[in-house]
């Protein structure tokens, strides 16, 4: 007879993996898109390399946030040392706690990349507007940071719950 109560750690691990995986996928797509735009600008004007490199890297942060959530979750659930036994309810809570970062990370990385590509076009034509061009993709970052915050708060609080 299959015992569901032993599956807590499995769900918790799936949550950690999804946070790292989806954030990473989003960032890989995003940085790839912005990389193409950056290469296009540098082909015509190599002096803009520094500016477009920063804009290229902006959608890369979601991958880092995902990694951070994954790492914190692994530490909390005892996979990286300690006791990995937990109830099914607790495992599901960890799983749910990882979802904001996983989903928002992937979606925001792609949309941030689109904003970055547009900003790279802006820098190509008006390099003196670099400061303003950074703000547009940075606005999308807000929501990735909010997702990171809620995931972190949830993951670090679950350990103290009696479930």
């Amino acid at each position, binding site marked *: 007879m299959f015992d569901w109560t032993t599956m807590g750690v499995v769900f918790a691990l799936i949550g950690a993996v999804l946070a790292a995986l989806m954030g990473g996928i989003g960032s890989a797509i995003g940085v790839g898109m912005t990389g*193409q*735009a950056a290469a*296009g*600008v540098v082909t*015509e004007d190599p002096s803009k390399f520094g500016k477009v490199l920063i804009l290229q890297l902006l959608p890369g942060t979601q991958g880092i946030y995902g990694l951070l959530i994954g790492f914190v979750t692994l530490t909390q659930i005892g996979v990286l040392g300690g006791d990995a036994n937990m109830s099914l309810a607790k495992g599901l809570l960890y799983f749910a706690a990882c979802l904001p970062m996983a989903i928002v990370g992937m979606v925001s990385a792609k949309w941030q990349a689109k904003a970055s590509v547009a900003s790279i*076009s802006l820098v190509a*034509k008006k390099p003196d507007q670099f400061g303003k061009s950074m703000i547009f993709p940075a606005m999308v970052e807000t929501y990735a940071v909010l997702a990171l915050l809620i995931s972190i708060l949830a993951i670090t609080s679950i350990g103290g719950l009696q479930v």
Partner: protein
Amino acid sequence: MTEEYIYAVARVRSKELGLLNRQDVDQLMACRSYEECLRTLSDKGWGTGESSSAEAILAAEEEKTWAFIHELTEDLTPFQVLLFPTDYNNLKAAIKAVITGVEPQDVFLPGGSIDPEVMLRCVREGDFSALPESMAQAADSAYHTLLQTQDGQLCDVILDRACLLDVLNCGRESKNDILRDYAELTCAVSNIKVAVRACKTGKNRAFLEAALAPCATLNADSLAAAACKSLDDLFAYLAATPYSEAAGRLKESYSAFEKWCDDKVMDLVKSQKMNPFTVGPLFAYVIARRNEISTVRIILSGKLNELDDGMIRERLRDMYV
């Protein structure tokens, strides 16, 4: 896929910095002579450095534009709306050269999507299977019409109409708004030009029906009916269409109408300055380059013929940047 043009659009954005703007046009206008204009253009990097004649400089610039587009994308299908007129022009030249038995010399335009030699061979052998299907049908019909009637104008009408239909189809199939709108505008404007000329030369309804291509924004039947009556009727019909401004410009002068046509295209493609994806900005860049070449040609012709600055200025097109 909107994302396949990201690299290309970024390069186009950088290239747009080199387009002539209003200040550059004013600088050219301020040149005291034709030679000074050529020197100014040369200083801006126009031409190959070796070419000194205006035509050579302008041809070199057109060539540079297409070389750049070829570098950006291997698939020129979206640009067919711009290439069809050149191809059909070369096809006309090939058919007329073969039927009149004249060896074609300097009659083919460069930059088409089909090698003029292929067209010449097709016409000589009477086998048009090497051409795209719609073009082959039109070529076959135009060839036999010219052979039987010796009417060059009828041959031109068949090929011009086929060209417009191909442009329209290409625009519709592209699933890109800017290409579809450009094709529609090109077709409508060509229909207006045909109707005005036919009206002025007293052509009959049958000629107009054979020459006008059906498009979404102009009713070819109503246009033909109006053109058969009088210019005033034609202008009255146009006033009730999205091309109402055209009537006013035509009343002013034909050159004012042509400037309006070019400016309308420019207004259409200017929206692409805000689009970082899709093939639209590449298409807009080619239009912008053609527009500036056309503007420079007007200035050079004016300077060469020592026309009054005011006369040149009223013909100058809106610039993309």
